[in-house]
């Protein structure tokens, strides 16, 4: 009888782990709390650094899933219990047995309204990077609430990252390059627009990222080194923003038509409950603590529970796919050594 | 300091320097300010080393200063340089030996241009032909006069009368070197030891018993900078650059500064006087200033030539303290006498810089 692996979360990491475990001959039960697979990436329009459509990646992943994977959509896992060396996973009132667990629960976008002085949820044209993506998906360009094209757009980096005031002291790592990508896209969609990025440091750590940054500079995106301190709403829903231009040591204010908050990655609250069930303590930032950061990055403290993707901390898609491969292999080793 | 590291770099930058038959080309500044130095160079080559060296009374400036101050166009520059090459050819020599670092830079730059853009060379041929009816060939070897001294440093050492050892303390003299910017910064491969750790002067000091001091602003410009100096209002930039160098070397208490560029030698020397007069500050302990020597002058001293024949009385910062340290026998009364014994008269005495009559 083949063994069963439960994968919690149908984002990039969950899909990739499913594919790999299925290839290794396991029965896979995939739980996804949303009505569709793909996670956050599925809701994204285009991906950095090469700006391919996110659907390409998601479609490629879903098409490779075969029938040995049982996909449960709109299925929120409420509880995981240990029973005689295996697990009982309870979702939507139904319990299913699993021999190993892979947590691929992902993250939540930082709730931008916690940064009250930025005016998200209060001022009309203050949006998040995720909302900008859906604007690109539906309109191909950003639109102000009054239906006009924004003539001036400001991207605010590090919203919910590197900020102890909202208990997010860590760097979310992907927002810098996302902002640069989106800035280019705004510039391309509305060539007459002025685009500004307010950054503290630009952390372009991956292949092609620095090129993207340079491309943005070439296309006329302006970069201002300073963190947004406060916003006010002006006539016509425009937004007055204030920052220090730290390179010239002067306060700077600017009225823009649209403010895009580059929300960081936050630990998902519902993951916390599962961690409690499995007796795994979260790390300092609230993400899943892996067993050994360098050598066992997909193990957890709990036997038989593996982890991949952004539930371990801010990740990009490549990181998630790599972790998913590793996790699948580790699950295989675990299940065959018994 | 990892000397092995420097030696590695020095070995990477070894240039080809001719052995004999030099076509000597004068420097505008050196022949005006340090005529004794030129004279002693020729005497060392001819009398001490037995080399054949000639010069032509028809050669002109390379127009480098005019070129760098954007007065002389590049085409003119090339043509003037080509004429000087033609003169050497007329004399039947192949080893071009300029005394000026600016000129050395100009020649190097033009030869490199011609190498990459042969059409420029062709153009220059046409211009020269049209203007003077002359033809020219590129020199077989281009070496600065300091390169030549460097090449024969060990021969000079063998024939030397004095060494760079303090006769009183027995310690090696501490020497700071200053290489002209245009010697190797533009074309590092054309300088002995490259641009970052040039060996052309350090090699002389080592060979003659002194100790080279690696001070932080060693690579910094002397402050000449053509345009900065030529306009009076801009001279603040020039003197500030020298000041930065003096401040940087001060704590090492150097016995003298050694230069290979006539302009640098001039500014390192004269700005010490100007700073002393403007700000009341000298960069040695006794108010004498730090003596500044060119490589020819130093070679002359080591070989036992009379300091006044070398022309050291032309220096603003008096060299007598150095002569004492080296144990050189000299006659103070001869300082301001001409070659024929005629009294040249005393220069005006500065207010703040010690002056030895």
């Amino acid at each position, binding site marked *: 009888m083949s063994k069963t692996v439960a994968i919690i979360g149908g984002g990039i990491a969950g899909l990739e782990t499913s594919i790999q475990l299925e290839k290794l001959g396991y029965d896979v039960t995939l739980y996804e709390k949303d009505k569709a697979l793909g996670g956050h990436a599925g809701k994204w329009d285009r991906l950095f650094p090469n700006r391919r459509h996110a659907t390409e990646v998601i479609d490629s992943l879903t098409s490779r899933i075969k029938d040995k994977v049982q996909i449960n959509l709109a299925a929120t896992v409420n509880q995981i219990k240990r029973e005689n060396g295996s697990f009982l996973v309870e979702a939507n009132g139904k319990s299913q047995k699993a021999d190993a667990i892979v947590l691929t629960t992902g993250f939540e976008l930082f709730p931008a309204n916690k940064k009250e*002085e930025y005016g998200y949820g209060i001022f009309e044209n203050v949006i998040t990077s995720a909302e900008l993506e859906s604007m690109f998906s539906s309109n191909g360009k950003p639109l102000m609430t009054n239906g006009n094209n924004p003539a001036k757009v400001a991207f605010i980096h*590090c919203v919910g990252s*590197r*900020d*102890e*005031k909202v208990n997010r002291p860590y760097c979310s790592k992907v927002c810098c390059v996302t902002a640069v990508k989106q800035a280019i896209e705004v510039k391309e969609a509305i060539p007459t627009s002025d685009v500004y990025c307010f950054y*503290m*440091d630009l952390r372009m750590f991956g292949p092609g990222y620095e090129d993207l940054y340079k491309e943005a500079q070439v296309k006329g995106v302006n970069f201002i*080194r*300073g*963190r*947004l*301190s*406060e916003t006010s709403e002006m006539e016509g829903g425009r937004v007055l923003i*204030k*920052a*220090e*231009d*730290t390179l010239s*040591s*002067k*306060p*700077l*204010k600017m009225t823009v038509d649209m403010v895009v908050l580059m929300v960081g990655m936050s630990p998902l609250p519902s993951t916390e409950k599962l961690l409690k069930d499995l007796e795994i303590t979260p790390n300092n930032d609230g993400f899943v603590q892996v067993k050994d950061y360098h050598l066992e990055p997909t193990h957890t403290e709990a036997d038989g529970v593996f982890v991949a993707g952004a539930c371990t901390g801010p990740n990009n898609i490549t990181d998630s796919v790599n972790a998913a491969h590793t996790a699948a292999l580790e699950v295989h080793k675990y299940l065959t050594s018994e | 300091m990892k000397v092995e590291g420097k030696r590695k770099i020095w070995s990477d930058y070894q240039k080809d320097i001719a052995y004999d038959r030099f076509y000597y080309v004068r420097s505008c500044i050196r022949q005006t300010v340090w005529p004794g130095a030129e004279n002693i160079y020729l005497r060392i080559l001819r009398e001490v080393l037995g080399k054949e060296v000639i010069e032509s009374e028809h050669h002109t400036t390379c127009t480098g200063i005019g070129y760098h101050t954007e007065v002389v166009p590049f085409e003119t520059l090339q043509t003037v340089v080509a004429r000087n090459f033609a003169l050497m050819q007329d004399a039947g020599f192949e080893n071009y030996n300029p005394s000026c670092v600016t000129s050395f830079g100009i020649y190097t730059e033009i030869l490199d241009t011609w190498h990459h853009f042969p059409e420029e060379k062709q153009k220059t041929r046409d211009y020269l032909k049209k203007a003077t009816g002359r033809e020219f060939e590129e020199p077989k070897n281009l070496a600065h006069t300091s390169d030549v001294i460097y090449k024969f440093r060990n021969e000079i050492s063998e024939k030397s009368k004095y060494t760079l050892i303090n006769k009183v303390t027995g310690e090696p003299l501490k020497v700071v070197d200053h290489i002209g910017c245009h010697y190797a910064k533009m074309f590092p491969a054309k300088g002995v030891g490259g641009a970052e750790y040039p060996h052309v002067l350090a090699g002389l000091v080592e060979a003659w018993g002194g100790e080279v001091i690696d001070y932080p602003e060693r690579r910094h410009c002397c402050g000449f900078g053509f345009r900065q100096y030529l306009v*009076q*209002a*801009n*001279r*603040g*930039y020039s*003197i*500030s650059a020298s*000041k*930065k160098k003096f401040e940087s070397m001060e704590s090492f208490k150097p016995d003298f500064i050694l230069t290979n560029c006539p302009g640098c030698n001039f500014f390192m020397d004269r700005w010490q006087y*100007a*700073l002393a*007069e*403007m*700000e*009341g500050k000298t960069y040695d302990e006794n108010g004498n200033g730090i003596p500044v020597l060119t490589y020819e002058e130093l070679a002359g001293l080591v070989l036992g030539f009379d300091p006044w024949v070398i022309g050291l009385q032309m220096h603003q910062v008096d060299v007598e303290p150095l002569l004492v340290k080296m144990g050189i026998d000299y006659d103070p009364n001869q300082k301001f006498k001409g070659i024929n014994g005629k009294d040249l008269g005393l220069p005006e005495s500065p*207010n703040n810089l010690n002056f030895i009559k």
Partner: protein
Amino acid sequence: MVNFGYTTLPTHIHDMDKADLGLADSISFEDSSFNLCIACGSCTSTCTAGAFTNFSFRQMCHQIKRGENSQAIAESEKCMLCGKCTLACPRNVNTRNIIRLVRKANQTI
């Protein structure tokens, strides 16, 4: 002294060998949050005084860290102690306390 018609230029360099870092040391001893700045400028941009003058808390701290104490102390006087910057700082620098420490340094000078 002789006037030749030109002067040497003032040095425009942080000479950290000669810089007086006593104030920086004493402030970071009294309140270690002084060291946590990441130079984002939130404080300056939200600053009530900064709207009227060139006062910059970030720059003031930086000046102290480079030993430019007299400039920093002169700047600090413009602060109204309103505390907005404390709320804006992502690194929880105890800004009001630092201003007080700088002002106190002024008293002892």
